[in-house]
């Protein structure tokens, strides 16, 4: 099996920074690391499992209803994840609200199924789906790290910026309110793309 399947989604072919897919959810769920982590895991499970199932079914799917069959399988996994979160992690599921359901519309999943799973054997498809989900999650975690640290002064809900630094306690520091709002996620995402393109020159347009 080609080694690139494992490495490409993290850098050279990252779904967010290179393919520019899944932007909506990466703006919406990156206020806190906890939400970003749950979202990353959910997307990874959905892409990996639906790629696996659809790759197993790939020779039997009638080509005229191909997209609908894909959607049904993806939707099944998304609803399952939503139900499990509601039962076992109610607070997180309330925090992520509609965005778990919206995984169905995440282009990364359909993109990987169409581009890879339908033309490859089950195991490589599973790996491809999982690595793309993790590549997406990696960017989510990077953005959420900065947003939570600078916007709320916490990481995973734990206070990391000393309370005595804050203005109201006689210090000099204030949380950046803009970090909590979605526009800042887009700016941070832009910075990530910028850094990646300055390292990896062949991505730059002439």
């Amino acid at each position, binding site marked *: 099996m080609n080694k690139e399947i494992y490495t490409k989604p993290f850098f050279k072919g990252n779904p967010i920074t290179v393919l520019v897919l899944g932007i909506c959810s990466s703006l919406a769920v990156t206020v806190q690391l906890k939400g970003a982590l749950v979202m990353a895991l959910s997307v990874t499970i959905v892409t990996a499992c639906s790629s696996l199932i659809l790759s197993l079914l790939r020779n039997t*799917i009638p080509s005229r209803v191909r997209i609908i069959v894909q959607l049904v399988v993806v939707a099944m996994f998304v609803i399952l994840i939503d139900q499990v979160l509601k039962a076992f992690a109610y607070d997180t599921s309330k925090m992520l609200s509609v965005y778990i359901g919206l995984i169905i519309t995440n282009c990364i999943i359909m993109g990987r199924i169409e581009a890879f799973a339908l033309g490859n054997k089950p195991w490589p498809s599973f790996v491809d789906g999982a690595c793309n989900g993790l590549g997406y999650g990696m960017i989510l975690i990077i953005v959420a790290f900065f947003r939570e640290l600078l916007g709320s002064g916490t990481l995973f809900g734990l206070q990391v910026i000393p309370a005595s630094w804050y203005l109201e306690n006689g210090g000099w520091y204030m949380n950046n309110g803009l970090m909590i709002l979605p526009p800042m996620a887009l700016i941070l995402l832009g910075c990530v793309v910028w850094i990646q393109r300055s390292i990896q020159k062949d991505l730059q347009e002439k």
Partner: protein
Amino acid sequence: MNTNSNTYTVIYTTVLVVIVAAVLAFASSALKQRQDDNVALAKMKTIMLAANYGQNADGSADKNADFMKLYNDHIVNTLVLDAEGNVVEGVDAFRDVDLKTQFSNLKKGQSVNLPVYQCKMDDGRIVDIVAMYGAGLWGAIWGYVAVEPDGETLCGAIFDHASETPGLGAKIAEPAFYTQFRGKKLSASGEFSSVTVINGGAHGSENGVDAISGATMTSKAVSESLEQWLGAYKAYFTNRTSAQKQEQPCCCCDEAECAENTESNE
């Protein structure tokens, strides 16, 4: 086999959909109980927080508090009232009353079911916890207000929201905002009146609290929803007040006592 024939396509999709439906139905029925318990627990939590139970010293929710036990220990009775303050029989306040439906009934002037949770405080006095629900700037806001036995002093309040702006309107769910309601009065110059959220600061007013700066619309929405809902409960509270005055002319429920109760719970 020809995978493009109509018969194949129809049979294929039917079988697929039936299998997926079976999986989802199984998952849903297996997890239903746990999900319902979670929703009920979240509701018990907000109700108990309104009466200042299960809070840390700064008023935020205590992560280790067992809200189900608190609810079962302290909520001695639940009532459902209509707009005239009469008890509606056969309706359970906790299970059967959907605040969103009641809110639209209230707006249209139709008959309403208003839930009341009677909470027995540590010193034995019974505090009424009543609900409110309204439209914020972006989505629904809701909360519970605990009223002392005199029917006019607030013991505590709690608010939550669906999608107010983080860092601005979302602050209604933070202790700095809702702890302000403790000890406020539901009366102005002898008349029943709601507590108002005042832009520009309440300056120690007896029935006003400070609005959140930068969140005028959400603050106003809290104020208006409170007025609407407490107005609907008015008949009930006025009865409580007059009954109280007949029983014991001296009322001794003040803010200090309320704060004491919170401390003794920790």
